[in-house]
């Protein structure tokens, strides 16, 4: 039993270290949460401006769009997966990660989950509690939608993690600075993931195309399931499909770039 729990302890300890890495320092890092709050307030106002009086738009009511935006911001970190892999590559400290008795994916994932904990407590939960003051319903379309949302979020995280490793391997393969690849990825995924603008509000056809791209599995799929504006089963199957495909690609790219990875950066 102890042997089975030992790996779990390693990862939970890593997560705990990451969760507390900012705490004890100045509280100025909380300014980021303030900025996120402002962003969500502005976006909610913009949707009200655009959609008031238009009824249902491509299956989405104003209420659904507002909930979509609120949940999208509350779970922004989970819908746009970022790990310390980029920093480790830039610092050239990836090599030391190979010396730790944990899988690389496990290390970075547990670190990422640890960092999430603080944000979930300090921002996500208060935002959800305040939602009524903002005249936005935080509730899922149905209890089943809420349940499927959790599964979809896990799958979306899986897809996001795979993309992390793919982009990192590409940066190494192309011999480009990791910050550069991250800069491109961030700009592109904001639009293609559906985190900022629901696909239903885009011109016909464009939204459909975006839905089939892997980025949509990270944000649009869980949010559509939550708001009941998408076929949950179909969206989950697409996420599973992308998860399998992208992890196979990530694994292959990682193995191919393994030697270069160790000496990259620094």
């Amino acid at each position, binding site marked *: 039993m102890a042997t089975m729990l030992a790996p779990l302890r390693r990862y939970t300890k890593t997560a*705990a270290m990451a969760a*507390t890495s900012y*705490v*004890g*320092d100045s*509280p100025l890092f909380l300014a980021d949460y303030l900025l996120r709050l402002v962003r969500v307030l502005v976006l909610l106002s913009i949707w009200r401006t655009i959609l008031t009086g238009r009824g249902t738009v491509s299956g989405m009511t104003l209420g659904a769009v507002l909930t979509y935006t609120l949940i999208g911001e509350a779970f922004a970190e989970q819908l746009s997966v970022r790990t310390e892999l980029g920093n480790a590559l830039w610092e050239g400290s990836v090599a030391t990660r190979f010396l730790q008795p944990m899988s690389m994916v496990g290390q970075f994932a547990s670190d990422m989950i640890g960092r999430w904990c603080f944000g979930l407590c300090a921002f996500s939960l208060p935002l959800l509690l305040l939602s009524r003051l903002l005249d936005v319903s935080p509730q899922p379309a149905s209890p089943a939608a809420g349940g499927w949302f959790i599964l979809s979020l896990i799958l979306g995280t899986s897809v996001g993690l795979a993309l992390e490793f793919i982009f990192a391997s590409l940066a190494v393969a192309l011999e480009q600075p990791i910050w550069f690849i991250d800069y491109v990825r961030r700009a592109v995924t904001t639009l293609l993931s559906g985190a900022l603008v629901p696909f239903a509000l885009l011109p016909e056809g464009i939204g459909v195309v975006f839905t089939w791209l892997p980025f949509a599995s990270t944000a649009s799929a869980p949010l559509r399931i939550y708001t009941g504006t998408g076929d949950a089963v179909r969206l989950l199957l697409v996420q599973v499909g992308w998860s399998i495909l992208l992890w196979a690609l990530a694994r292959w790219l990682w193995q191919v770039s393994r030697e270069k990875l160790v000496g990259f950066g620094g």
Partner: protein
Amino acid sequence: MPVPDRSAISASDTVVELTGVWKRYRQKQRSAQLREVVRTMLRPTVRTIEALRGIDLQVQRGEIVAYAGPNGAGKSTTVKLLSGLLAPDAGSVRVFGLDPVRDRVRYVRRIGVVFGQRTELWWDHSIAASYEWKRVVWDVPRDRYERMLGFVKELLGLDEFFHTTARELSLGQKMRADLGMALLHEPEILFLDEPTLGLDVLAKRQMLQFVKDLNRERQVTVMVTSHDMSDLEQLAGRIVMIHHGNIAFDGDFDQLRRAFSDRRRLLIETAEATAPRLAGADLLHSAAGRHEYVFDASEVKIAALLEQAAAQAQVLDVETHRADIDDVIADIYLRWQHDGKAQALATDAQSSQAQPAAPPAPTDA
């Protein structure tokens, strides 16, 4: 800026003057306990460190001064104060009569700084491009630049990688390039903070020789910090040791040895494999009849040790030399550690009876 006519300047003029310099840092203490996390965020425990405690220091033009001390003694803080990166909390720092912080722009034209753990090179550019950048930003006249460039390229062996990007250089090559870069504007004083960090034996030797040549030929004053004592002994005529923010020693290396101990090494070769037991000397190692001991020559005479050895074994050969400076310094640090612990115990005992007087609060610089 015209090159100073160094022949007209008295060899004994003071270039660096620290008077009653205090520097304190505040460090937040963090708990390893999850349950302490909120408390440390809202009411952190703060530790105040007195990096420098009213130090006085003067350096004359043309000197090479080694500035040494254990980790956390205040060495890098001193270099940062002298480089104009920090202002003292109390006291004054003057170099060439200038205040390094207030007169920064004028001042930094006359100094060169090399931090062992930081490079001034442009990462994605060649050394040539970084040096050209230096020429423009420091406004070095072209003829002076070319002259110094030739000088540093030759003495530091930069030609082989002069057109390579910094990112692709080894640590030793980067350090040499950094040193060359720090000299392009012909500084009058050079501050070297751990310049031999991570260098191999040959690279270290080359760098040290270069600095000595520079000092001899161009009268550049040098202040160097390092943990590598043998490097410092080769390089500097004067060593200033700093401990807990105070200057604990200021003199030459021979005086240092005599002041703290006169450690010597004794190598005895005997016909027997077993090492003789010598009262007053510690056996370091013994192999195939060769036995090395360390002893304090101020406490026990070599003759007495040899007498003891001869009484126990057939002595075939004897060799004696001064203890490595690293051993001397290690002894000093160990003694300071013990003194520090003793003082801490004494302070605890005293504080349980009465409040000790607080150190004087530094006034603003």
